[in-house]
Protein backbone atom coordinates (compact mmCIF):
# COMPACT_ATOMS: atom_id res chain seq x y z
CA UNK A 1 0.00 0.00 0.00
CA UNK A 2 1.17 3.52 -0.79
CA UNK A 3 0.09 6.18 1.71
CA UNK A 4 0.59 9.53 0.00
CA UNK A 5 -1.87 11.53 2.07
CA UNK A 6 -0.82 15.13 2.62
CA UNK A 7 1.97 15.00 0.06
CA UNK A 8 2.08 17.60 -2.65
CA UNK A 9 2.69 17.17 -6.35
CA UNK A 10 4.33 15.11 -7.68
CA UNK A 11 5.23 12.99 -4.64
CA UNK A 12 2.20 10.64 -4.79
CA UNK A 13 2.98 9.74 -8.39
CA UNK A 14 6.69 9.34 -7.58
CA UNK A 15 5.79 6.89 -4.80
CA UNK A 16 3.46 4.88 -7.02
CA UNK A 17 6.07 4.87 -9.79
CA UNK A 18 8.72 3.55 -7.38
CA UNK A 19 6.42 0.77 -6.18
CA UNK A 20 5.37 -0.17 -9.72
CA UNK A 21 8.96 -0.23 -10.98
CA UNK A 22 10.28 -2.16 -7.98
CA UNK A 23 7.59 -4.81 -7.41
CA UNK A 24 5.34 -4.70 -10.47
CA UNK A 25 2.31 -5.39 -8.26
CA UNK A 26 -0.83 -6.79 -9.93
CA UNK A 27 -2.86 -4.84 -7.42
CA UNK A 28 -1.93 -1.75 -5.44
CA UNK A 29 -3.81 0.39 -2.97
CA UNK A 30 -3.01 4.09 -2.87
CA UNK A 31 -4.27 6.60 -0.31
CA UNK A 32 -4.35 10.30 -1.21
CA UNK A 33 -6.31 13.28 0.09
CA UNK A 34 -6.59 15.65 -2.84
CA UNK A 35 -8.50 15.36 -6.09
CA UNK A 36 -5.49 16.56 -8.06
CA UNK A 37 -3.51 13.58 -6.73
CA UNK A 38 -6.31 11.21 -7.77
CA UNK A 39 -6.12 12.65 -11.29
CA UNK A 40 -2.32 12.46 -11.46
CA UNK A 41 -2.06 8.92 -10.07
CA UNK A 42 -4.89 7.79 -12.37
CA UNK A 43 -3.13 9.22 -15.44
CA UNK A 44 0.11 7.54 -14.48
CA UNK A 45 -1.51 4.23 -13.53
CA UNK A 46 -3.48 3.92 -16.76
CA UNK A 47 -0.33 4.61 -18.76
CA UNK A 48 1.21 1.62 -16.97
CA UNK A 49 -1.74 -0.63 -17.80
CA UNK A 50 -3.72 -0.41 -14.58
CA UNK A 51 -7.45 0.00 -14.08
CA UNK A 52 -8.22 2.46 -11.33
CA UNK A 53 -11.11 2.46 -8.86
CA UNK A 54 -11.56 5.34 -6.44
CA UNK A 55 -13.59 5.41 -3.23
CA UNK A 56 -13.96 8.72 -1.41
CA UNK A 57 -14.45 8.87 2.35
CA UNK A 58 -14.21 11.93 4.60
CA UNK A 59 -12.21 13.92 2.07
CA UNK A 60 -9.70 11.10 1.57
CA UNK A 61 -9.48 8.91 -1.47
CA UNK A 62 -8.70 5.21 -1.48
CA UNK A 63 -7.52 4.16 -4.93
CA UNK A 64 -7.29 0.56 -6.08
CA UNK A 65 -4.99 -0.05 -9.02
CA UNK A 66 -5.50 -3.37 -10.81
CA UNK A 67 -3.36 -4.67 -13.66
CA UNK A 68 -5.50 -5.11 -16.77
Amino acid at each position, binding site marked *: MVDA*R*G*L*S*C*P*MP*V*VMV*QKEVNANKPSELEVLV*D*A*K*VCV*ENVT*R*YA*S*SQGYDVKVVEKD*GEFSMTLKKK
Partner: protein
Amino acid sequence: MGKNSKVNIWVLITGLVIGIAALALTALGNPKNMGFCIACFERDIAGALGLHQAAVVQYVRPEIIGLVLGSFIMSLATKEFKAKAGSSPAVRFILGASVMIGALVFLGCPLRMVIRMGGGDLNAFVGLAGFAIGILIGIFFLKKGFSLKRNYSVTLTEGFVMPVSAVVLLALVIAVPGIFLFSEKGPGSMHAPLFVSLAIAMVVGALAQKSRICMVGGMRDVVMFKDFNLLSGFVVVFVTILIGNVILGNFSGFSTYLQPIAHASQLWNLLGMVIVGWGSVLLGGCPLRQLILAGEGNGDSAVTVFGMVVGAALAHNLKLAGSAASLAEDGTYNAGGIADTGKVAVAIIFVVLLAVSILNIPRLDKKSK
Protein backbone atom coordinates in the same frame (compact mmCIF):
# COMPACT_ATOMS: atom_id res chain seq x y z
CA MET B 1 4.24 7.19 -23.87
CA GLY B 2 0.94 5.36 -24.19
CA LYS B 3 -2.18 6.84 -22.66
CA ASN B 4 -0.11 9.17 -20.55
CA SER B 5 0.17 11.52 -23.49
CA LYS B 6 -3.56 12.11 -23.13
CA VAL B 7 -4.13 15.75 -22.27
CA ASN B 8 -6.91 17.31 -20.32
CA ILE B 9 -9.01 19.64 -22.46
CA TRP B 10 -9.11 22.14 -19.58
CA VAL B 11 -5.34 22.54 -19.72
CA LEU B 12 -5.58 23.50 -23.39
CA ILE B 13 -8.48 25.89 -22.74
CA THR B 14 -6.62 27.46 -19.82
CA GLY B 15 -3.47 27.91 -21.92
CA LEU B 16 -5.52 29.57 -24.64
CA VAL B 17 -7.34 31.86 -22.19
CA ILE B 18 -4.09 32.82 -20.42
CA GLY B 19 -2.56 33.70 -23.79
CA ILE B 20 -5.51 35.82 -24.90
CA ALA B 21 -5.83 37.41 -21.44
CA ALA B 22 -2.15 38.37 -21.44
CA LEU B 23 -2.45 39.95 -24.89
CA ALA B 24 -5.61 41.83 -23.85
CA LEU B 25 -4.08 43.11 -20.61
CA THR B 26 -1.04 44.42 -22.49
CA ALA B 27 -3.28 46.07 -25.09
CA LEU B 28 -5.24 47.68 -22.23
CA GLY B 29 -2.19 49.14 -20.57
CA ASN B 30 0.03 46.54 -18.89
CA PRO B 31 3.76 46.75 -19.76
CA LYS B 32 4.96 45.00 -22.91
CA ASN B 33 5.34 41.24 -22.67
CA MET B 34 3.86 41.52 -19.18
CA GLY B 35 0.18 40.72 -19.51
CA PHE B 36 0.87 38.42 -16.62
CA CYS B 37 3.97 38.07 -14.50
CA ILE B 38 3.44 36.59 -11.08
CA ALA B 39 6.90 37.59 -9.85
CA CYS B 40 6.75 41.15 -11.23
CA PHE B 41 3.22 41.70 -9.96
CA GLU B 42 3.95 40.47 -6.45
CA ARG B 43 7.03 42.71 -6.55
CA ASP B 44 4.80 45.65 -7.56
CA ILE B 45 2.47 44.90 -4.65
CA ALA B 46 5.48 44.77 -2.29
CA GLY B 47 6.39 48.20 -3.63
CA ALA B 48 2.87 49.59 -3.24
CA LEU B 49 2.95 48.44 0.40
CA GLY B 50 6.22 50.29 0.90
CA LEU B 51 8.25 47.14 1.46
CA HIS B 52 10.73 48.43 -1.11
CA GLN B 53 11.34 51.93 -2.47
CA ALA B 54 11.95 51.26 -6.16
CA ALA B 55 9.65 54.05 -7.38
CA VAL B 56 9.09 52.58 -10.86
CA VAL B 57 7.63 49.25 -9.69
CA GLN B 58 4.88 50.09 -7.21
CA TYR B 59 1.26 49.19 -7.91
CA VAL B 60 -1.41 47.00 -6.31
CA ARG B 61 -1.72 44.57 -9.20
CA PRO B 62 -5.34 43.38 -9.33
CA GLU B 63 -4.22 40.36 -11.35
CA ILE B 64 -2.73 38.76 -8.23
CA ILE B 65 -5.91 39.42 -6.25
CA GLY B 66 -8.04 38.09 -9.11
CA LEU B 67 -6.03 34.89 -9.53
CA VAL B 68 -6.41 34.09 -5.83
CA LEU B 69 -10.12 34.89 -5.76
CA GLY B 70 -10.81 32.99 -9.01
CA SER B 71 -9.14 29.93 -7.57
CA PHE B 72 -10.94 30.39 -4.23
CA ILE B 73 -14.39 30.59 -5.84
CA MET B 74 -13.74 27.68 -8.20
CA SER B 75 -12.43 25.50 -5.37
CA LEU B 76 -15.52 26.28 -3.28
CA ALA B 77 -17.75 25.42 -6.25
CA THR B 78 -16.01 22.09 -6.86
CA LYS B 79 -15.74 21.37 -3.11
CA GLU B 80 -11.97 21.21 -3.43
CA PHE B 81 -11.33 24.03 -0.98
CA LYS B 82 -9.44 22.48 1.94
CA ALA B 83 -7.48 24.14 4.70
CA LYS B 84 -4.13 22.37 4.79
CA ALA B 85 -0.69 23.27 6.04
CA GLY B 86 2.33 22.02 7.93
CA SER B 87 4.68 20.84 5.18
CA SER B 88 7.95 22.58 6.11
CA PRO B 89 6.53 26.14 6.08
CA ALA B 90 9.73 27.99 6.98
CA VAL B 91 11.69 26.15 4.29
CA ARG B 92 8.94 27.00 1.81
CA PHE B 93 9.16 30.67 2.82
CA ILE B 94 12.90 30.66 2.05
CA LEU B 95 12.33 28.80 -1.22
CA GLY B 96 9.64 31.31 -2.19
CA ALA B 97 12.01 34.21 -1.54
CA SER B 98 14.78 32.41 -3.48
CA VAL B 99 12.56 31.73 -6.48
CA MET B 100 11.46 35.36 -6.47
CA ILE B 101 15.04 36.66 -6.45
CA GLY B 102 15.95 34.26 -9.28
CA ALA B 103 12.92 35.46 -11.25
CA LEU B 104 13.83 39.11 -10.73
CA VAL B 105 17.43 38.44 -11.82
CA PHE B 106 15.94 37.14 -15.08
CA LEU B 107 13.06 39.66 -15.01
CA GLY B 108 10.06 37.38 -15.04
CA CYS B 109 8.38 34.32 -13.60
CA PRO B 110 8.05 31.19 -15.80
CA LEU B 111 4.75 32.49 -17.15
CA ARG B 112 6.29 35.80 -18.23
CA MET B 113 9.21 33.84 -19.68
CA VAL B 114 6.74 32.09 -22.01
CA ILE B 115 5.01 35.40 -22.75
CA ARG B 116 8.40 36.98 -23.56
CA MET B 117 9.25 34.06 -25.82
CA GLY B 118 5.99 34.61 -27.70
CA GLY B 119 6.92 38.28 -28.00
CA GLY B 120 10.11 37.40 -29.86
CA ASP B 121 12.48 37.97 -26.93
CA LEU B 122 15.40 35.58 -27.51
CA ASN B 123 16.80 36.35 -24.04
CA ALA B 124 13.79 34.43 -22.70
CA PHE B 125 14.88 31.35 -24.64
CA VAL B 126 18.14 31.50 -22.70
CA GLY B 127 15.96 31.70 -19.61
CA LEU B 128 14.07 28.64 -20.85
CA ALA B 129 17.33 26.71 -21.09
CA GLY B 130 18.13 27.68 -17.51
CA PHE B 131 14.60 26.80 -16.41
CA ALA B 132 14.95 23.33 -17.95
CA ILE B 133 18.33 22.80 -16.28
CA GLY B 134 16.85 23.87 -12.94
CA ILE B 135 13.94 21.47 -13.33
CA LEU B 136 16.34 18.61 -14.15
CA ILE B 137 18.37 19.36 -11.02
CA GLY B 138 15.15 19.40 -8.98
CA ILE B 139 14.04 16.09 -10.50
CA PHE B 140 17.41 14.55 -9.61
CA PHE B 141 16.69 15.28 -5.95
CA LEU B 142 13.03 14.17 -6.19
CA LYS B 143 14.27 10.82 -7.50
CA LYS B 144 16.68 10.63 -4.56
CA GLY B 145 13.66 10.91 -2.26
CA PHE B 146 13.52 14.66 -1.61
CA SER B 147 10.35 15.65 0.22
CA LEU B 148 9.18 18.59 2.33
CA LYS B 149 6.98 16.02 4.11
CA ARG B 150 3.24 15.93 4.32
CA ASN B 151 0.72 18.60 5.18
CA TYR B 152 -2.23 18.18 7.55
CA SER B 153 -5.81 19.31 7.77
CA VAL B 154 -5.91 22.52 9.78
CA THR B 155 -8.57 24.98 10.88
CA LEU B 156 -10.42 26.98 8.26
CA THR B 157 -8.68 30.16 9.46
CA GLU B 158 -5.44 28.92 7.90
CA GLY B 159 -7.12 28.21 4.58
CA PHE B 160 -8.77 31.61 4.47
CA VAL B 161 -5.57 33.60 5.02
CA MET B 162 -4.79 34.17 1.34
CA PRO B 163 -8.34 34.69 0.02
CA VAL B 164 -9.13 37.11 2.88
CA SER B 165 -5.82 38.95 2.37
CA ALA B 166 -6.78 39.35 -1.29
CA VAL B 167 -10.25 40.70 -0.42
CA VAL B 168 -8.82 43.13 2.16
CA LEU B 169 -6.18 44.38 -0.27
CA LEU B 170 -8.87 44.90 -2.91
CA ALA B 171 -11.17 46.72 -0.48
CA LEU B 172 -8.35 49.02 0.63
CA VAL B 173 -7.20 49.86 -2.87
CA ILE B 174 -10.76 50.80 -3.80
CA ALA B 175 -11.65 52.64 -0.59
CA VAL B 176 -8.39 54.32 0.41
CA PRO B 177 -5.95 54.14 -2.52
CA GLY B 178 -4.00 57.04 -0.99
CA ILE B 179 -2.35 54.78 1.59
CA PHE B 180 -0.45 52.90 -1.14
CA LEU B 181 2.58 53.97 -3.16
CA PHE B 182 1.88 54.09 -6.89
CA SER B 183 4.53 54.52 -9.58
CA GLU B 184 4.25 57.68 -11.64
CA LYS B 185 6.55 56.38 -14.33
CA GLY B 186 8.09 53.07 -15.36
CA PRO B 187 6.44 49.63 -15.52
CA GLY B 188 4.51 50.19 -12.27
CA SER B 189 2.66 53.12 -13.84
CA MET B 190 1.51 51.00 -16.79
CA HIS B 191 -1.59 48.98 -16.13
CA ALA B 192 -4.96 47.98 -17.49
CA PRO B 193 -8.06 49.37 -15.69
CA LEU B 194 -8.39 47.85 -12.21
CA PHE B 195 -11.72 46.08 -12.62
CA VAL B 196 -10.86 44.76 -16.08
CA SER B 197 -7.61 43.26 -14.76
CA LEU B 198 -9.45 41.86 -11.77
CA ALA B 199 -12.21 40.25 -13.83
CA ILE B 200 -9.82 38.75 -16.39
CA ALA B 201 -7.56 37.39 -13.66
CA MET B 202 -10.51 35.84 -11.82
CA VAL B 203 -11.45 33.89 -14.94
CA VAL B 204 -7.83 32.79 -15.39
CA GLY B 205 -7.56 31.89 -11.69
CA ALA B 206 -10.70 29.76 -11.85
CA LEU B 207 -9.49 27.95 -14.97
CA ALA B 208 -6.00 27.50 -13.53
CA GLN B 209 -7.53 25.92 -10.43
CA LYS B 210 -9.64 23.55 -12.50
CA SER B 211 -6.90 22.58 -14.96
CA ARG B 212 -3.95 22.55 -12.46
CA ILE B 213 -1.87 24.35 -15.11
CA CYS B 214 1.70 24.81 -13.95
CA MET B 215 4.70 26.00 -15.90
CA VAL B 216 7.20 23.90 -13.96
CA GLY B 217 4.93 20.85 -13.75
CA GLY B 218 4.88 20.63 -17.55
CA MET B 219 8.52 19.82 -18.09
CA ARG B 220 8.79 17.91 -14.82
CA ASP B 221 5.98 15.49 -15.70
CA VAL B 222 7.35 14.87 -19.19
CA VAL B 223 10.79 13.96 -17.82
CA MET B 224 9.55 11.96 -14.84
CA PHE B 225 6.42 10.24 -16.15
CA LYS B 226 6.33 10.91 -19.91
CA ASP B 227 3.13 12.80 -19.10
CA PHE B 228 2.50 15.64 -21.57
CA ASN B 229 -0.68 16.95 -19.93
CA LEU B 230 0.66 20.08 -18.25
CA LEU B 231 3.32 20.80 -20.87
CA SER B 232 0.54 21.17 -23.44
CA GLY B 233 -0.70 24.22 -21.50
CA PHE B 234 2.77 25.75 -21.57
CA VAL B 235 2.97 25.24 -25.34
CA VAL B 236 -0.52 26.63 -25.97
CA VAL B 237 0.32 29.82 -24.02
CA PHE B 238 3.44 30.29 -26.18
CA VAL B 239 1.68 29.64 -29.49
CA THR B 240 -1.31 31.85 -28.58
CA ILE B 241 0.95 34.73 -27.58
CA LEU B 242 3.10 34.35 -30.69
CA ILE B 243 0.14 34.26 -33.09
CA GLY B 244 -1.62 37.04 -31.19
CA ASN B 245 1.44 39.29 -31.38
CA VAL B 246 1.75 38.66 -35.11
CA ILE B 247 -1.94 39.48 -35.67
CA LEU B 248 -1.75 42.61 -33.50
CA GLY B 249 1.37 43.78 -35.31
CA ASN B 250 3.51 43.61 -32.15
CA PHE B 251 5.88 41.03 -33.53
CA SER B 252 9.09 42.09 -35.22
CA GLY B 253 11.04 38.85 -35.30
CA PHE B 254 13.19 37.13 -32.69
CA SER B 255 16.01 39.14 -31.18
CA THR B 256 17.99 39.69 -27.99
CA TYR B 257 18.29 43.42 -28.71
CA LEU B 258 16.43 45.97 -26.55
CA GLN B 259 13.56 43.69 -25.56
CA PRO B 260 10.82 45.13 -23.31
CA ILE B 261 11.78 44.97 -19.61
CA ALA B 262 14.51 42.41 -20.27
CA HIS B 263 18.29 42.36 -20.26
CA ALA B 264 20.78 40.61 -22.51
CA SER B 265 23.20 39.49 -19.82
CA GLN B 266 22.79 35.86 -20.81
CA LEU B 267 24.70 34.10 -18.04
CA TRP B 268 22.39 35.76 -15.52
CA ASN B 269 19.27 35.11 -17.57
CA LEU B 270 20.30 31.48 -17.49
CA LEU B 271 21.26 31.26 -13.81
CA GLY B 272 18.23 33.25 -12.65
CA MET B 273 15.93 30.74 -14.28
CA VAL B 274 17.95 27.74 -13.05
CA ILE B 275 17.04 28.99 -9.56
CA VAL B 276 13.38 29.39 -10.52
CA GLY B 277 13.17 25.91 -12.08
CA TRP B 278 15.01 24.15 -9.26
CA GLY B 279 13.25 26.02 -6.45
CA SER B 280 9.82 25.53 -8.05
CA VAL B 281 10.32 21.77 -8.40
CA LEU B 282 11.22 21.61 -4.69
CA LEU B 283 8.07 23.63 -3.90
CA GLY B 284 5.93 21.42 -6.15
CA GLY B 285 4.79 24.18 -8.48
CA CYS B 286 5.58 27.43 -10.24
CA PRO B 287 4.73 30.88 -8.77
CA LEU B 288 1.34 30.87 -10.56
CA ARG B 289 0.50 27.46 -9.10
CA GLN B 290 1.47 28.63 -5.60
CA LEU B 291 -1.06 31.47 -5.87
CA ILE B 292 -3.77 29.10 -7.06
CA LEU B 293 -3.06 26.59 -4.27
CA ALA B 294 -3.06 29.41 -1.71
CA GLY B 295 -6.50 30.37 -3.06
CA GLU B 296 -7.83 26.85 -2.48
CA GLY B 297 -6.79 26.83 1.17
CA ASN B 298 -3.18 25.64 1.14
CA GLY B 299 -1.41 27.48 3.96
CA ASP B 300 2.01 26.23 2.85
CA SER B 301 1.51 27.90 -0.52
CA ALA B 302 0.29 31.07 1.22
CA VAL B 303 3.55 31.12 3.19
CA THR B 304 5.43 30.60 -0.08
CA VAL B 305 3.67 33.61 -1.62
CA PHE B 306 4.55 35.72 1.44
CA GLY B 307 8.14 34.53 1.04
CA MET B 308 8.03 35.65 -2.57
CA VAL B 309 6.78 39.11 -1.57
CA VAL B 310 9.60 39.43 0.97
CA GLY B 311 12.08 38.12 -1.61
CA ALA B 312 10.89 40.82 -4.01
CA ALA B 313 11.39 43.52 -1.39
CA LEU B 314 14.90 42.22 -0.67
CA ALA B 315 15.66 42.05 -4.39
CA HIS B 316 15.04 45.78 -4.75
CA ASN B 317 16.30 46.96 -1.36
CA LEU B 318 19.61 45.14 -1.80
CA LYS B 319 19.81 45.78 -5.56
CA LEU B 320 19.71 42.13 -6.58
CA ALA B 321 17.18 42.46 -9.43
CA GLY B 322 18.19 42.74 -13.06
CA SER B 323 18.01 46.10 -14.78
CA ALA B 324 16.45 46.21 -18.23
CA ALA B 325 18.30 47.01 -21.45
CA SER B 326 17.94 50.62 -22.47
CA LEU B 327 18.84 53.12 -25.13
CA ALA B 328 20.32 56.43 -23.94
CA GLU B 329 19.35 59.72 -25.58
CA ASP B 330 22.64 59.81 -27.48
CA GLY B 331 21.84 56.36 -28.87
CA THR B 332 24.17 54.37 -26.62
CA TYR B 333 22.84 50.86 -26.07
CA ASN B 334 23.02 49.42 -22.58
CA ALA B 335 22.38 45.67 -22.59
CA GLY B 336 21.33 45.77 -18.93
CA GLY B 337 22.13 43.04 -16.45
CA ILE B 338 22.60 42.64 -12.73
CA ALA B 339 24.76 44.34 -10.15
CA ASP B 340 27.54 42.55 -8.24
CA THR B 341 25.22 42.21 -5.23
CA GLY B 342 22.83 40.26 -7.44
CA LYS B 343 25.62 37.93 -8.54
CA VAL B 344 26.54 37.23 -4.92
CA ALA B 345 22.86 36.62 -4.12
CA VAL B 346 22.61 34.08 -6.95
CA ALA B 347 25.65 32.24 -5.56
CA ILE B 348 24.19 32.22 -2.04
CA ILE B 349 20.83 30.97 -3.30
CA PHE B 350 22.53 28.07 -5.09
CA VAL B 351 24.07 27.07 -1.76
CA VAL B 352 20.65 27.39 -0.07
CA LEU B 353 18.90 25.28 -2.73
CA LEU B 354 21.61 22.63 -2.55
CA ALA B 355 21.39 22.49 1.24
CA VAL B 356 17.57 22.27 1.21
CA SER B 357 17.69 19.61 -1.50
CA ILE B 358 20.23 17.39 0.26
CA LEU B 359 19.00 17.83 3.82
CA ASN B 360 15.45 16.81 2.90
CA ILE B 361 16.42 13.45 1.48
CA PRO B 362 15.65 10.71 4.02
CA ARG B 363 18.88 9.14 5.22
CA LEU B 364 19.62 5.63 3.98
CA ASP B 365 19.49 4.09 7.46
CA LYS B 366 15.99 5.44 7.98
CA LYS B 367 14.87 4.34 4.55
CA SER B 368 15.31 0.65 5.28
CA LYS B 369 12.77 0.55 8.10
